[in-house]
């Protein structure tokens, strides 16, 4: 089932000459984990915000093309309507805290209260998402007293409590340390395994290569590649465009460790397997 359908999306921020998105098209199936990568200012955040309607409804500006997410035409619906079906998690854990709640438990309730969810339903959902993201034991803490990774997981929990069909994350680990990053990736992969559709913009390409089903590469607002990580990272032109590729892929390319289908390993595990095989051949 197709959950996200983006057709020829073009967008220009107000008072900007260059378009931020320039003819982006792709579609996503239910339960897929899509990674969006690309250099800074390539349109990753803009695309994430376009999936929930913040672009164009919040920023205004000129938009063209079509965005269908979870059966809603995003351009024809208000942000709060779209957000009942699509959750968006931002970069900074700190600014995602509502600031109006004094405990982790109440913070999750903020969005539910706004949506008018009944109290017993709220209690059920809050417990579910807090346990899901391993925050149940911190439920009485002040949100601002959490670590970065915990705060970001709280942001994810708060969005998940709204029970969206699609979860969009805009560089959710860029302000986290490696441990926090692992926490977030593990949580998101778990969700994906449970059938959630995930779209994540991210700079940490090695993590994306390991987890994502497909990778969308953006460059100057255009989509220049969309496919399984191995195929995408096998492209010769990415480094020249400033698109980072996993270090392990780079190394395998230099070593000439090519897989039978012409691609290179994108994870250390794949490379180790490959290397083992290569050494085996050498010895025989």
């Amino acid at each position, binding site marked *: 089932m197709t959950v996200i359908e983006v057709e020829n999306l073009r967008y220009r921020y107000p008072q900007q000459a260059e378009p931020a998105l320039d003819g982006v098209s792709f579609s996503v199936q239910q339960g897929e984990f899509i990674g969006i990568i690309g250099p800074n200012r390539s349109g990753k955040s803009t695309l994430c*915000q376009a999936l*929930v309607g*913040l672009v164009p409804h*919040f920023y205004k500006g000129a938009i063209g093309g079509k965005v269908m997410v979870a059966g809603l035409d995003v351009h024809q619906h*208000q*942000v*709060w*309507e779209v*957000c*009942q079906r699509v*959750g*968006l998690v*931002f*970069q*900074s854990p*700190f*600014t*995602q805290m*509502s*600031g*109006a709640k*004094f405990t982790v438990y*109440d913070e999750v*309730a*903020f*969005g*539910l*209260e*706004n*949506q*008018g*969810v*009944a*109290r017993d339903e*709220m*209690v059920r959902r*809050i417990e579910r998402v807090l346990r899901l993201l391993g925050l149940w034991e911190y439920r009485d803490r*002040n949100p*601002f*007293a959490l670590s970065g990774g915990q705060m970001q997981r709280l*942001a994810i929990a*708060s*969005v998940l409590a*709204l029970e969206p069909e699609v979860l969009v994350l805009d560089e959710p680990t860029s302000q986290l340390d490696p441990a926090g990053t692992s926490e977030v990736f593990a949580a998101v992969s778990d969700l994906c395994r449970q059938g959630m559709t995930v779209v994540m913009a991210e700079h940490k390409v090695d993590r994306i290569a390991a987890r994502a089903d497909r990778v969308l590469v953006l460059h100057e607002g255009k989509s220049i590649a969309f496919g399984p990580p191995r195929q995408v990272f096998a492209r010769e032109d990415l480094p020249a465009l400033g698109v980072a590729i996993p270090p392990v892929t780079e190394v395998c390319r230099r070593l000439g460790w090519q897989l039978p289908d012409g691609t290179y390993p994108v994870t250390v595990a794949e490379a180790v397997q490959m290397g083992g095989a290569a050494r085996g051949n050498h010895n025989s």
Partner: protein
Amino acid sequence: MRLSLYVPGNSWVHRLDPLTKLIMAVVAVILVFVLPGYWASAALLAVSLGVLASGGVLRRSVPVFLGVSLIAITFFVVQGLVYPGNQHPALTLGPVTFYQEGLLLGLKLSLRLYNILAATLVLILLTNPSDLVESLVRRGVPSRFGYVVVAVLQMIPNMAATTGTIMDAQRSRGMETEGSLWTRMRAFIPLMGPLVTSSLIATEERALALEVRGFSGNRKPTFLHEEVIPPYAWAVRALYLAALILAIAGRWIG
């Protein structure tokens, strides 16, 4: 972590719902201006102090009362010396004479001052501000207004923490932040620049984050916490409102 003088506790005043405490404070402040004479004012003050004491915050309010005593003393001195209605000398200290009429006016003004203060402290020290705001939002106050009030309570301490970080950063790069007034004023600009910029960026990000959590939706909001109004709250409300009505009626007839 928060900008509030609320003292948590479990006294009967704490357990009262915020709206009742708001009624208590508002009625007491109105009574200050309606009640005639000194004895009634003093009785009202005694009631407010009694509420503060049974809430366990009398000691917390002493510094406030002492701080304000400076104003009260000013009332006595100024009115006692120069009140136009002064006729009967009451006390002579060297060259200055205090008059009876002026001192009584000073007493009246001081009683008013302390009455207003004590009534407000019931609200400030014994009411959780976010509960108060929530109970107002339940009764139709726009939730945007409620959000702003509560968020400010939490955001200002956070901004203070940011200010500390920026100050440390600037200091570590050799900026002088201590010393003469002129040095401090010069340090102000490199401090305000990053603070204002980072606050503006944070504000936009937070606005986006609120938006995706349905903040500007048109649904009727629900509340996680049930509002608990203890039965005796109705008695307290009735008592205060009855006192108000009696005082107004007395004033009107008398």
